[in-house]
């Protein structure tokens, strides 16, 4: 398939294709981070993860409308405000959900699966009733659209760069929070031995609530960022949920590093195969690869020791 192209053309396509893989990688990490925190720390499989993302997307939509009508001069920077609001909106909803529902189900992991799935259906219908069944279009400031031309033939997407930057920033923030702060130390203590952590005076319930809120808040930021590349509608969250679970499970549930490594592997495999094969075939092969690796290594790529 490459016979008809000059070397320069091929070179630039490979650069752009590599970049496409990196964007996909960032998107996967951003999607999975919130879920990985919740799943890893609390063992809760949050089927409503996508709906927390979409709440962030709706917050972004309303923020954009607000700036458009009341603060048009600041429209260029509304996205940053929107992401912060999205974090707090989804985080607050997450904490409320934890308090009302999840904390009653910690000892019944299968029930949390069902309960959060029910929650996702409820949230979808709430969005549909409140915001309408139709998708909404989020307007972006001009500087966030289009692409940067590095050379005559190499172009990189600005929104891709933005997602990448955001992913790096959030990952670093989460890593610092988990491994450098006192709160992070407590979270890790609870993960490793919940009873003992409680015995030394850590308020495990509070830790659970905040962790769940943090995970949902990050989902909200991800949803906000994805208004640039995807759709915003009541059921849009469903588009991401499968890939998100794939990344988290493949990476090994309790490990941040595992999530990143697995996002990298899956995204590179998929974007390379998509280039050489058709889209559906690439997806099939990716899933097949993941299934085979999980059969050989059911705990995922990386795993840390935990006392059950």
């Amino acid at each position, binding site marked *: 398939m490459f016979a008809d192209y000059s070397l320069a053309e091929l070179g630039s396509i490979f650069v752009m294709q590599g970049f496409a893989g990196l964007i996909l990688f960032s998107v996967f990490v951003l999607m999975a981070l919130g879920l990985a925190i919740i799943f890893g720390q609390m063992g809760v499989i949050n089927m409503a993860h996508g709906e927390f993302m979409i709440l962030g997307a709706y917050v972004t939509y309303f923020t954009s409308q607000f700036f458009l009508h009341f603060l048009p001069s600041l429209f260029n920077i509304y996205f940053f405000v929107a992401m912060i609001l999205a974090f707090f909106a989804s985080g607050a909803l997450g904490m409320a959900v934890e308090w009302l529902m999840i904390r009653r189900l910690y000892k019944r992991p299968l029930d949390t699966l069902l309960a959060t799935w029910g929650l996702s259906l409820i949230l979808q219908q709430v969005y549909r009733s409140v915001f309408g069944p139709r*998708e909404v279009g989020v307007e972006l400031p001009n500087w966030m659209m289009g692409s940067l031309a590095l050379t005559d033939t190499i172009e990189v*997407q600005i929104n891709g760069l933005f997602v990448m930057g955001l992913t790096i920033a959030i990952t670093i923030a989460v890593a610092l929070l988990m491994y450098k702060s006192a709160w992070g130390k407590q979270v890790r203590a609870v993960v490793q031995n919940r009873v003992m952590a409680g015995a030394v005076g850590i308020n495990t319930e509070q830790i659970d609530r905040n962790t769940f809120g943090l995970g949902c808040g990050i989902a909200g930021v991800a949803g906000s960022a994805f208004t640039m*590349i995807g759709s915003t509608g009541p059921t849009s969250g469903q588009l991401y949920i499968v890939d998100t679970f794939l990344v988290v499970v493949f990476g090994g549930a309790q490990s941040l590093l595992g999530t990143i490594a697995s996002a990298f592997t899956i995204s590179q495999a998929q974007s390379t195969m998509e280039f050489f094969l058709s889209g559906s075939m690439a997806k099939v092969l990716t899933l097949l690869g993941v299934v085979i690796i999980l059969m050989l290594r059911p705990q995922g790529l990386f795993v840390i020791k935990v006392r059950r």
Partner: protein
Amino acid sequence: MSSDNDNSHKFSSMRRKLLMGMAALPAAPLLSSTGLFSTPAYAQAPATAAVNTTGLAVTDTEVTVGILHSVTGTMAISETGSVQAEKLAIDQINAAGGVLGRKIKFIQEDGASDWPTFAEKAKKLLVNDKVAAVMGCWTSASRKAVLPVFEQYNGMLYYPTFYEGLEQSKNVIYTGQEATQQILAGLDWVQKTKSGKTFYLIGSDYIWPRTSMKIARKHIEGHLKDSSVVGEEYFPLGHTQFNSVINKIKLKKPDVIYAAVVGGSNVAFYKQLKAAGIDLSKQTLLTISVTEDEIDGIGGENFAGAYSCMKYFQSLDNPNNKEFVAAFKKMWGEKTVIGDVTQAAYLGPWLWKLTVEKAGSFDIDKIAAASAGIEFTKAPEGYVKIHPNHHLWSKTRVGQAQPDGQFKVVFETPDLIEPDPFPKGYQ
């Protein structure tokens, strides 16, 4: 809406009592109820026994139809417009005197984006409610699910969506385009005016895009001069990452991107095309899956410049359409947009009314037989006629998307295109 229905119900039950009271008077048959009460002309209504021999839900004053669409679940996004259009049409028909002197009452059921639910609700409408006709379904999957129900219990379905063809039933009237009506003229146009020689086909991975692309490929390779397909790609429904295929498109540099991507993927595809620096005012893109409804989600600025091949656009400049758009916005709000399928859904109740009046009966068999040749001159798309194969004769149009989310019509076939659900040489 619900309060409207309550009123109409009270109104008609009161009327029934009045009529019964009048029947006791010897002079009553001579008096026209229209004259007495200045209500719409229900007076000439033929006797129920004569127009309804199969036990449908038809009374002296009312006839019940069903509306069967998803108002919850994934498909609600698309089907909402159809429900709105059908309710508008029913309202307008009632205001103009109803059908055979009877007011249309509707029972709405929710298919919930779930195909077995569609089948179950269809059965409920036909068996329990005995509706005289059903306006409904959107996806091919839901239509395939209800088809055996309609055939078994002999119901009548008015199906609004453009679809892949390869189907024909006595019990269904297809008010949208079948595949060839939507594809062939558009391809001819793009080849002629944009001198398109190389085509890149891209679609979601299910029956409609696959069948449509098969027809498109045969047409491009067999009927268009010196034209070829340089790529054909399908993506799973819900796919959101198109950067790789966009790179492939950049590499192949096709004259025309021909797209049938649907749902949330649609939004992602166009946003990412725009972000990747593919300027749709320079790169010709022709799609058969984006109407005004979808642009709402994609964002006008992301889709501006692209071409869409449909039979109806909200911006069509004819008196019928102006009236329709005004009435639609009055009923459902200034901000609603009207896409191709919404218009096709609007045709359903009207075509049914005209057919019933031609047949002089609500009986399904008589309607099925009388359907061929029914003309609707007030259609927003201009003029439509039912073909003996139960599809519509309709024009094919190409519109170029504007940044405000509307289309500018740049081409329309001079004549109505004959529906051909089983196209020879394209299968």
